[in-house]
């Protein structure tokens, strides 16, 4: 029972991170600020959902698979964020300035 509660909490936290991340992706004004919620929160959200699943599952060989998934997720998500950000920087994609945002209301 306690296991279920802990697992539930982890999963809820993960989902919350996803919601925040997606909101950020939609609301943030430019590419660089959008990168921030989408990569960071997705990684954290997915990882805590997986931790929740691991807790729910208990000790078994499946834990190893979950651990691998977490590993690859951390690595690939970070690398993707890095690659996107770096190429955007090198291609001189303009930064967000506060004034422009005010002009069209929502910023994006």
């Amino acid at each position: 029972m306690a296991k279920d509660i802990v697992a539930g909490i982890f999963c809820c936290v993960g989902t919350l991170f996803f919601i925040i991340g997606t909101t950020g992706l939609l609301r943030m004004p430019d590419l660089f600020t959008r990168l921030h919620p989408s990569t960071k929160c997705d990684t954290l959200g997915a990882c805590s959902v997986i931790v929740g699943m691991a807790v729910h599952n208990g000790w078994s060989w499946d834990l190893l698979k979950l651990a691998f998934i977490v590993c690859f997720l951390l690595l690939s998500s970070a690398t993707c964020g890095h690659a996107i950000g770096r190429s955007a920087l090198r291609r001189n994609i303009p930064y967000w300035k506060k004034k422009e945002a005010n002009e069209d209301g929502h910023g994006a």
Partner: protein
Amino acid sequence: MKKVAALLFISALAVLLLYVVASMPPMGDPDNPTATHVIPRYLERAEEETHTVNVVTGVILNYRGYDTMGEVTVIFCALAAVLAVLGRERRGVIHGFVDRSEVPASVIVKTMVRFMVPFIILFSVYTILHGETSPGGGFQGGAVIGGSMIIFTTIFGLYESSRRIPLKVRAPLEGAAVMGFFLVGSLGLVGGGNFLTYAWPRVAQGLHPSLVVWLTVLVEVGIGLGGAMVLTSILFAMIREEEEIAPAS
């Protein structure tokens, strides 16, 4: 005018199809014609007859293996069609592609790809070899290998990756799937079976059942290798640039 006609045609087709779907037997009903005719035998006896735990693999490679042979030929045909339109690199000429991306990949990305690709290939080998016991098989594994080659090529460029899988490896292996089927199919003739007999009657006559498993795995490996090579060749043909960078020494 054209748009209206197209819209009318599409909506007529949609109404027709929805009408058919509505009058089709209900989904999941155990009395369906589909559930009572051929399927029960597949579900009940596939493991005993085809020696594959995964019934799907048993059906696509054994009961309906001839269809799958046709499907892998379709895949090969797709490659031939791409090469017919785009042309193919020729022997003795090193081809490259002009790197159009303004940003070269950084060390971090390169290291990560070099680290990940072996794992991806390991996973796909697992998928291919366990096709007869768990979901997956040659098609899926082959596609994953192809995907890993796409990642490698986008980061390191055509020159590097075609050095690792040169034409002389790809050319004979592109048809590995069809060859595997043909080989196993012809082996079926040994001992009086029909084409594509995976030795089931021979097992009944006292041969060891692991033979069937080995033949199934052989076909799976053929499909996986062939699919991977076809995808790689399609990718190379698509990103290859017309100008030939350097003649062979």
